[in-house]
């Protein structure tokens, strides 16, 4: 979330799309109710199903799964056509005025620079025109045909209401009604928030779904505002923390880009990640990359990381390609990965295409499952009848189960969706032989280190030199680890005059104190400040809120810098006055930025200096035109890889752009995509409020509340197929089948798409062959093995199936 949970109460309009907050984020949803009851806010839900969020919404609009970009692009077109923009904001805080290379173009669904063989783009023309002064050129009048604003207008003009309705299946009047409600929020004193989750990320165009919405929020001037922002509701209590610490190989902690094989030495690596400002006076905050990265290396390798050895750069892994979840299972499936540690992860159930995952796990030499539960994955080799029909004799994988404690069985932190890091205290001992995750990893490390010390090895240095300063080396405490993450001074830090700012050994007050000369260590720069000399600030529980806006600055610690709403400089006009006085987060006092939040701005940056509020970009402004995206600088509608139409209605004669042309597809998977003649129905998978992923099926009470796997279909499809409610049905995709109970409901809309009828089959995902719930099939038996072109998140939300009475 750019904003935070409590802040939802400050919204005038709440849009839930690409998510189902009432069911999947029930506790946070209270702030939606607070906005509705407290300030008469309106709630709009756009979803392929009439969800429990829709049940309490003021307005519901149906949509075909996988067509959100078409819908949102239509909203952009509506805003531009009806001139419903916050003009001053768009001009001052976005790249609307920037001039783009005249070589840039878009034709027949492809942007310039496409390479069909590699399924990727050469982005050479997706760039600004640069002046001789080294800065990007702009046209403040927004009239230049090559300025972003004009290019954007042209790009989205194709998404008129009729086209949108025909692609999405949303009735035209419903689409226009939603447009009208959104457009009202172009006024500076009306703010919309958007709550989304996996309903947007889990598509082959997931990142662009979110980006299209971000563009809308920029056009309306809602970024940085209390009650506004782009708000990803995270699934697990600590999945934000997991992301921040970066278990993904493409990143190091704190979203620092990790080295690859192309980064041949430390200079290449650091310089290519240290950008230069491309507009005058901009903060260009990522220019501090060397301070963050060197401090990370000092936290990891201590005295062994020196200027002379490039801060131990050579010891960092340089992956030979992608290691996202699909890539890992692809490697495993090809027999190129033979050991797998699975910590708090149930991939047999949660990764797309269970058949492939099962085959991949069967090729491993060993699988280690570190989990509080005996997961489905830990028994992937065991025959559970039709639900997991494998032959254990054919599987040689050795499986180790290491029972782990649950979060309530040790101290630690949670980082919630609003980036607030909160300490939690141990409530009970874990049962039996369980151990905390820290201890399990520490036990493993100390043993590996001893083996390397004794026997040597190809490259012992990264293991032998790792900093391991814990009082009990085999049992580090969460307190020690959080202190390490926060960072400390390794020697006295002095200012230019030699005055000591931070004494050697002291905890740092924040990332502003980090240095690139090896004098500071910090395990994750964005968390710096959470455990300063003032103590463990994540333990704070002061809910005082002088602002009345829910800005409880002394509750826990929010990254970065305890800032609760990021981009909050944009809540003021260029002169430093809040756009809406009732939502004052900050104001320019004449000498400094101050108010109800930590300024997302250099505190003494006077408005006249024109320092842009989007300090993480080189431009200082937000990008309506975003060359960083894999499939294009503007969003375009592409069909899901399994489409009921068999073509992209935006480009019906161009099969190359039916689906995302830049999405990675592995050999063998393209052939497994189902076609509409055999699998005519759109399927989408989702969570239910009664369950939490694949955990709560082990809990008796949750099992009582929602005991058995089911699928949802419309009354019309049920009648067509002779299915009655409560019947057992068989649902097939081109990758497998499952059987579940039919729930026949008015809540699954029948849509008219491209002149024909499209039915949806809704499939909850919580069930499996282990647990207290009735034994069932794993939903991801059906889902396709293809992901978003940027994040590689699998396309769980839109694929094709057929259904019949079992």
């Amino acid at each position, binding site marked *: 979330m750019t904003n935070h949970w409590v802040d939802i109460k400050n919204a005038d309009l709440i849009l839930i799309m690409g998510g189902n907050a*009432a*069911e999947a984020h*029930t*506790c946070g*949803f*209270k702030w939606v*109710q*607070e906005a*509705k*009851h407290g300030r*008469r806010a309106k709630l709009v839900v756009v979803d392929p199903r*009439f969800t*429990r*969020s*829709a*049940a*309490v919404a*003021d307005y*519901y609009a149906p949509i075909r799964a996988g067509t959100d970009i078409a819908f949102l692009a239509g909203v952009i077109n509506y805003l531009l056509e009806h001139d419903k923009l916050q003009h001053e904001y768009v001009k001052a805080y976005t790249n609307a005025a920037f001039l783009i290379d005249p070589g840039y173009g878009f034709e027949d669904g492809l942007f310039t620079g496409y390479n069909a063989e590699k399924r990727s783009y050469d982005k050479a023309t997706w760039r600004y025109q640069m002046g001789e002064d080294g800065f990007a050129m702009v046209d403040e009048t927004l009239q230049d045909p090559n300025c972003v604003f004009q290019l954007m207008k042209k790009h989205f003009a194709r998404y008129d209401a009729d086209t949108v309705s025909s692609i999405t299946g949303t009735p035209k009047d419903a689409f226009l009604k939603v447009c009208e409600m959104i457009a009202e929020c172009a006024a500076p004193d009306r703010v919309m928030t958007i709550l989304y989750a996996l309903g947007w990320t889990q598509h082959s165009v997931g990142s662009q779904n979110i980006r299209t919405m971000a563009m809308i929020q920029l056009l309306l001037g809602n970024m940085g505002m209390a009650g506004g922002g782009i708000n990803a509701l995270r699934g697990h209590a600590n999945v934000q923390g997991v992301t921040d610490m970066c278990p993904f190989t493409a990143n190091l902690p704190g979203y620092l880009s990790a080295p690859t094989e192309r980064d041949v030495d430390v200079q290449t690596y650091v310089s290519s990640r240290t950008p230069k400002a491309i507009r005058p006076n901009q903060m260009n905050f990522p220019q501090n990359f060397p301070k963050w990265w060197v401090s990370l290396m000092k936290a990891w390798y201590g005295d062994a990381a020196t200027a002379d050895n490039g801060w131990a750069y050579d010891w960092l892994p340089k992956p030979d390609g992608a290691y996202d979840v699909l890539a890992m299972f692809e490697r495993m499936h090809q027999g190129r990965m033979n050991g797998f540690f699975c910590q708090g992860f149930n991939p047999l159930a949660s990764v797309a295409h269970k058949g492939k995952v099962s085959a991949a796990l069967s090729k491993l030499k060993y699988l280690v499952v570190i989990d509080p539960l005996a997961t489905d994955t830990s028994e992937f080799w065991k025959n559970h009848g039709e639900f997991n029909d494998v032959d254990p004799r054919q599987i040689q994988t050795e499986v180790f189960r290491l029972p782990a404690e649950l979060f309530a069985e040790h101290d630690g932190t949670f980082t919630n969706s609003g980036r607030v890091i909160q300490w939690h205290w141990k409530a009970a001992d874990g049962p039996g032989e369980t151990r905390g995750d820290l201890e399990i990893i520490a036990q493993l490390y100390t043993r590996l280190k001893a083996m390397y010390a004794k026997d040597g090895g190809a490259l012992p240095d990264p293991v032998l030199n790792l900093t391991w300063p814990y009082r009990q080396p085999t049992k580090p405490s969460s307190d020690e680890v959080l202190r390490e993450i926060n960072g400390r001074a390794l020697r006295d830090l002095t200012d230019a005059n030699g005055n000591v700012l931070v004494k050697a050994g002291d905890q740092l007050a924040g990332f502003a104190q980090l240095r690139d000369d090896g004098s500071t260590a910090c395990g994750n720069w964005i968390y710096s400040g959470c455990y300063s000399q003032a103590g463990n600030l994540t333990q704070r529980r002061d809910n005082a809120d002088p602002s009345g806006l829910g800005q409880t600055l002394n509750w826990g610690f929010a990254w970065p810098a305890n800032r609760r709403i990021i981009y909050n400089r944009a809540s003021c006009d260029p002169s430093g006055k809040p756009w809406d006085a009732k939502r004052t987060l900050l104001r320019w006092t004449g000498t400094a930025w101050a108010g109800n939040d930590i300024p997302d701005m250099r505190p003494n940056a006077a408005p006249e200096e024109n320092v842009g509020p989007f300090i993480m970009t080189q431009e200082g402004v937000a990008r309506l035109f975003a060359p960083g995206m894999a499939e294009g600088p503007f969003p375009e509608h592409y069909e899901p890889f399994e489409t009921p139409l068999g073509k992209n209605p935006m480009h019906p004669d161009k099969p190359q752009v039916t689906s995302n042309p830049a999405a990675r597809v592995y050999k063998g998977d393209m052939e497994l995509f189902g076609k509409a003649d055999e699998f005519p129905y759109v399927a989408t998978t989702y969570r239910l*409020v*009664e369950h939490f992923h694949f955990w709560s099926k082990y809990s*008796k*009470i*949750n*099992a*009582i*509340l*929602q*005991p*058995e*796997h*089911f699928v949802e279909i419309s009354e019309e499809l049920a009648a067509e197929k002779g299915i*009655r*409610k*409560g*019947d057992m049905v068989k649902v097939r995709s081109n990758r497998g089948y499952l059987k579940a*109970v*039919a*729930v*026949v*409901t*008015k*809540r699954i809309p029948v849509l008219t798409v491209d002149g024909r009828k499209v039915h949806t089959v809704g499939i909850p995902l919580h069930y499996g062959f282990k647990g*207290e*719930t*009735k034994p069932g099939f794993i939903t991801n038996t059906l889902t396709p093995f293809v992901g978003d072109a940027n994040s590689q998140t699998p396309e769980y939300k839109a694929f094709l199936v057929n259904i019949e009475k079992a």
Partner: protein
Amino acid sequence: MALQSLDIARRSATTTEAPQVRNTTEVAKLIDVSACIGCKACQAACMEWNDIRPEVGNNVGIYDNPQDLDDKTWTLMRFSEVEENGKLEWLIRKDGCMHCADPGCLKACPSPGAIIQYSNGIVDFHQENCIGCGYCVTGCPFNVPRISKADSKAYKCSLCSDRVAVGQAPACAKACPTGAIKFGAKEDMVHYAQSRITDLKERGYQNAGLYDPQGVGGTHVVYVLQHADKPSLYAGLPADPQISPLVSLWKGVAKPLAMVALGATALGSLFHYVMKGPNEVSKELEEEMEKEDAK
């Protein structure tokens, strides 16, 4: 539930005077159906606080689980898909004891002290005094009490009288994540309900209103309904619940004979229990009751 620091205003089949010294406030649980998302946290909290676990059932093609109230299910979300004014609505009502001001169950109960009403309005079953006759089932206009197959005693929501007695809200109200369940003085709840009704009317629900049916003297569980003119949309909530005339007759006209009838009924129940074992109230038993009433 028994033995707690609440004054008892009424006690089944008992004529002793109720205590009058303490001032007690009438309480109410307000269920704002328009704010309920059907998350079933109230069901989970009820099971946990009261240590009851029904069987893990099956999905029978609906979201309601368990499918009905039973001795181990004291509250239940009932889901109704309706089309009103051309618009689909998914109405989700938390079902359970309404804690009537004029409780049909208590009036019908022949066993002294098996059903009591506290001065704060909560109607509670004291199972140690229950003879399993099932008259409370007949007496209830909301079809709430259930006779257990395990011990032949009647069970239902106690409005967490044990929690309320020590100043706590019922478990369901405490667990509700969206504020759809609120608990407090009935006066305050009615007042809060008015603000919700105003809000709903502004959002186009012209017939929004409070469900506090006067046929049973009002209730201590009240609903805010989007369509208060059509309570039956909400999984058959009765529009004008009344205590069965049988019970009124039994308690009213036949009052002078009540004690005689009581003895006979108790005997009849015992006879029934011995002959047939524990059971839900049967047609036979109802006829028996009618016979007694006619005396």
